[in-house]
Structure formats: C-alpha cells, structure tokens
C-alpha cells in the first residue's frame, strides 16, 4: 500500500467491518448446510465453494490483494498454477491405473 491517508484508511475500516459480517454469515451457512448431510459430491462442492469465497474475501480485503502491485500478482499467479499442478497430482496417480 502506498502510505494511505487517514481518510482512505477510514474508508477501509468500513469495508473491514462489512467483510467481517460476511465471513460470519458464510461460516453460519456452511455449518448449517453440513447438518443437512447432502450427497458427498454436492457437499464437497458446496463446502469448498463457500470456503473459497471466504478465503477470497480475506485475501482481497484483509490482505489488500484487491489493489496490489503487478509483481505480487505475477508471483501469486505462478504459485496458483503450481498449486493446481499439486492438486492434479492425485489425478495423475489414479487416472489410468486401473484402481
């Protein structure tokens, strides 16, 4: 962040409170849904989508990724790509193995 002026920081604070409320609501939603005991596939998709939404709220607003510099974006894009490679690792293990 450029040395933020007091005024813009005050604006930030309002955003933080909003995000906090949203995070609480999403926590409540995901716990409530889990009590319904959905089909495994549906449960996984719903739970991970809500988690991803919460995580992106934290990353975007608390970690200020919504207005970061290009260099940081570039480093994180590379990381995300390699993270996805890691996620494909189990696929590469099971696909085509006849298990």
């Amino acid at each position, binding site marked *: 962040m450029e040395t933020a002026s007091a005024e813009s920081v005050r604006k930030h604070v309002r955003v933080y409170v909003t995000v906090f409320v949203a995070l609480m609501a999403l926590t409540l939603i995901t716990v409530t849904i889990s009590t319904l005991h959905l089909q495994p596939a549906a449960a996984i998709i719903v739970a991970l989508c809500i988690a991803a939404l919460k995580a992106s709220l934290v990353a975007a607003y608390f970690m200020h990724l919504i207005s970061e510099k290009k260099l940081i974006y570039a480093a994180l894009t590379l990381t995300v790509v*390699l993270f996805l*490679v890691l996620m494909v*690792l189990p696929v590469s293990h099971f*696909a*085509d193995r006849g298990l």
Partner: protein
Amino acid sequence: MSEAAPGAHAGVHTDHHAPPGFWRTYVFSQDHKTIGIQYAITALLFLLFGFTLMMIMRWQLAYPGQSIPFIGKFFGDANAPDGVMLPEFYNQLGAMHGTIMVFLGVVPLAVGAFGNYVMPLQIGAPDMAFPKLNMMSYWIYFVGGLTMLSSFLIPGGAAASGWTSYAPLSVIATAGQTVWLFGMICLITSSLLGSVNFITTIFQLRAKGLSFMRLPFFVWAQLVTSFLLLLAFPPLEAAGVLQLMDRLAGTSFFMPSGLVVSGQPLAYSGGGNPLLWQHLFWFLAHPEVYVLILPAMGIVAEIIANNTRKPLWGYRSMVSATVFLGFMSFVVWAHHMFLTGMGTVISSFFQATTMIISIPSIIILTALFLSLWGGSIRFTTPMLFALAFLPMFGIGGLTGLPLGLAPADIHLHDTYYVIGHFHYVVAPGTLFALFAGLYYWFPKVTGRKMNDTLGRIHFWFSFAFINGVFMPMFIQGLAGVSRRLYDGGAMYSHAQGVMHLNVFMSVCAWCLGLAQIPFIINFFWSIWKGKKVSDNYWDATTLEWSAATSPPMAHGNFATPPEVYRGPYEYSPPGSGRDFLPQNKPEEAR
C-alpha cells in the same frame, strides 16, 4: 512520514559508528560476502566428506567381502567387523553420500556460496535485502548438516534407505532415518529463507539502469533457481512431516494395509500409500536437478563470455529457455515413476513433458557452444573447467533421454545407467562448473589468483579419472546391473560379463580423490602466497569486478551506488577499438 526521515538517519549513523566485534564479523555475520565464504567452506568440507564415503564404498564394490585396508579397523564391529563392510553399513554410506552431495554440498556451494557472494555484487547492491535472514539461512543449514553427520554416531547408524528415502522401507528403518528427516527439515527451511532473500534482492536492489535484460546470465540462473527452491521444496517438507508422523506417532500415511515384514504383520493401522511419498519426493527432486544445474550454467556462461572476449551468443534465448525450463520442471516428476504401475496415458503425458524439457536445456547448451565460435579463446584454468562442462553436461543430458521414455526406462530403471546419467550431469557437469567458479572469483575474494600449473594438473587428472569412474557405469547399466547391489553384482550371472569394470572404476575414483590434492594445496597456498592481482584481473564487464577486491565486510560493496549503461557482455564492442566495456562505464567516456 516527515517525522520518519530524521529518525531513520539517526539509525544509519549509529549502525556505522559501532564496529562489530569478532563474533559479529566472522561468525554471526550479516554481510553477504562473509556468509558466502562461510557457505563455501562448509560446503567444500561436506563435498570432501561425501566423496570420501563413496571412495570407501568403491572398495566394497571392487573387492567384495575383503577387508578394507588401512582404515577398515576404524569403523567398529557394528559396521565392519575385521574391516569387512557389512551390508547395513554399505547402505548407510550410499544414502548419506547422496544426501550430503546434493543437499549439503552442491546446492549450498552453487546457491549459498556463489549466489550469496557474487549475485549482490553483480546487481550492484549494498547487500542482500534481508541480512539477518541471510545469517539465519546459513546457521540453519549448518545445524542441519551437523544433524545429518551426528546420525552416524547413534545406535543403528545413519539413514540407510537411499537418498530418496522411499517408504515403506524408510518408515520401518532404524533411528537414523528420523535424524535424517530432522536434518532435511532444517535444510529445507534454510533453502526457503534463502530463496525468499535471493528473489527479493534481485527484484528490489538492482542498480540504477540494470534492467532485467541487462542482468548477467548468472543472476538469471540464480533467480530461476530460487523460484524452484521456493515452490518445489515445501512439498518435500510436507512429505518429511508426514514421514516423521509415520515414524514417531505411528500414523500410516505411507504404510499400506496388511504389510508383513519377515513373516511378522506390522503394527500399523494401514490405509496409506507408499507411492504418495514418491509423488511428493519427486515433485521436489526433479526441480532439484535444475537447482543443481542452472547455477552451474550461469557460472559457465560468465566464464565463457569473459574468456572468448565476445558477447554470449543468444543471450535472450538463453534467458527465455531458463525461465521455460524452470516452469516445465514442475510437470515432469512422474517420469521417475514409470515402473509404479502407471497406465499408458499418464506415462505418455510425462514422456511428452520430459522430451519438451530437454529442448530448453539444449538451447542453453547450444548457445554456449556457439558462443565459442570465432572467439579468441584464453585457455585460463577456469575456462578449462567451463569448457569441459559443455560436453560432460551434454553426455549427462543426452543419456537422460532414454530414461525419459517409458519403454527404455523399464529396462534401465534403477541400474548403474541411471547412476552414470545423473552423475555426468552433477559431477563432471555441475562440480566442474563450480570449480571453474572457484578459480574465476578467487581473485575477487582474496585479491590473489590461484596457481595455474596446479590448476591445470587438477583439471586434467580430474577430467581423465572422472570419466573413468562414470563411463563404465553406462555399460554395466545396459547389462542390467542394479544400482543398489552391495557386492557390485557378484551374485548375479547377468552381471558377470561386466563385473571386471568395478575394479577399474574404483581405481579411477581413488585417483580422482588424489587429483583433488593439488586443488586443496593450491587453495590454501594461494590465499596467503598467491600472486597479487588487480581489482579486475580478468578484464571483465560485469559489476562485481568494479567493486574493490575483497570488498569491505559490512553492507558496503561500492563506494557510490553504481549505475549501469549497457548489457552484461560488451566484449570487443565493434567500432570502439576496446577489448571490453564495463557495464558501469558511462557512454561519453569512450
């Protein structure tokens, strides 16, 4: 902000006026040059130690079951009764040789030592971005190294499951494996801290005018290497934590159900997967290959440009190839696992990526070869090592292609062919480049040059004997001799035709050991008695040579911040009538 400025300056002044004491200057130093020297000395000692382990193993391979002469009685009855090496001890030596050479020798020397000492100077920085972190990297590495060494002294001895530590063997191995895991976690942490520091330094502390396409190739190599360390090491750290849990908390991450050892069912709940270890291990260990080779290529590129007195051929292609290589190295790991029951579709995918990754390596090697064309080559000692690197790495790389193809790999997997292949990459490849670097930057560090006659003796004998060690391995491997045999293949009929090569290889290995004596003498002699030389002894263009010789040891490499006006290799620039134009020489000063 306005209040901050005076405060910051006050801090600057106090920093400069207190001269650091002995401990801060030489032991817990935060200066990148001191830390680089610490890394270099420690890593060279580990290289010597790891090589000694191999020389001992080569006795058992050449003369299986015979008492080791002279030193056999020092290993104790638990390891070598009557001087005859036990299989368990052989396995310890093998596992520790691999671990020490890769994680405690070559990487710390290539990245920790050369990267730390040379890179900040080459980009015109006063120091690394995080000096305290730099100091921590070294000391965590040091502790990790001591941990590894200490494992030889515990009951049951050191880790003995190979440097790859495949589960489930490693999970049920003796306590040495636990020590190995703790040591590895230290080494990984050290590398992670180091790579954060390297990348930040390269991005943030480049001198004015030093754009990315003006960076010396060595800096590019260090940058990509650091990214590989940063992003590939954590999965191995994760795997190490899981294996520690398996060993200490009795979990079954890598333990399949129903495992029976020596007729006894194991007390594990099961449900784990031993191949998970292989996936996570090779997810690091393939990028690790490029961690070993890229800094070596960087060193060779610097030395070739300097000693041919012309710019590198295809600098931009080399840079793009390096970046592409770094990225691709993350998607080839399973070519180490063709024999794990992988289907044809997935094998084909990893074969394809493996063939693709050979292209950037070939681009870099070709560019280096073409750089020689038409140059007025100075055959200095560093240049001899750099020139030898090219064909040696070529052999190492090309012999890798059959291993990347599943059908050929089924025959060659885990034979001496594999050992020959990767040793050609790392020993006469990377290690020769590291020797080249030592001879090349020695005058910058000490103000004296190493003796050329001793250097040539060191080079020619090393070159001859190292090929004598590794070339016959291809023959043995093609004959099907497994890499892990304690008796060198004596009990297998298919190995009988190539068994006699063991003696030749072992004699070459011991002679290779002797050939390092001129280097050791030269190194110490030259520190005190070597010929004194000027600041820019090699007439080089890159920034480290515009700094004073053995630059001051506290965050001050340059008297004034340097400014860069041109690319890194302006040798024999046309029309200028000069042999070389340093990067920081202003244009009008022609």
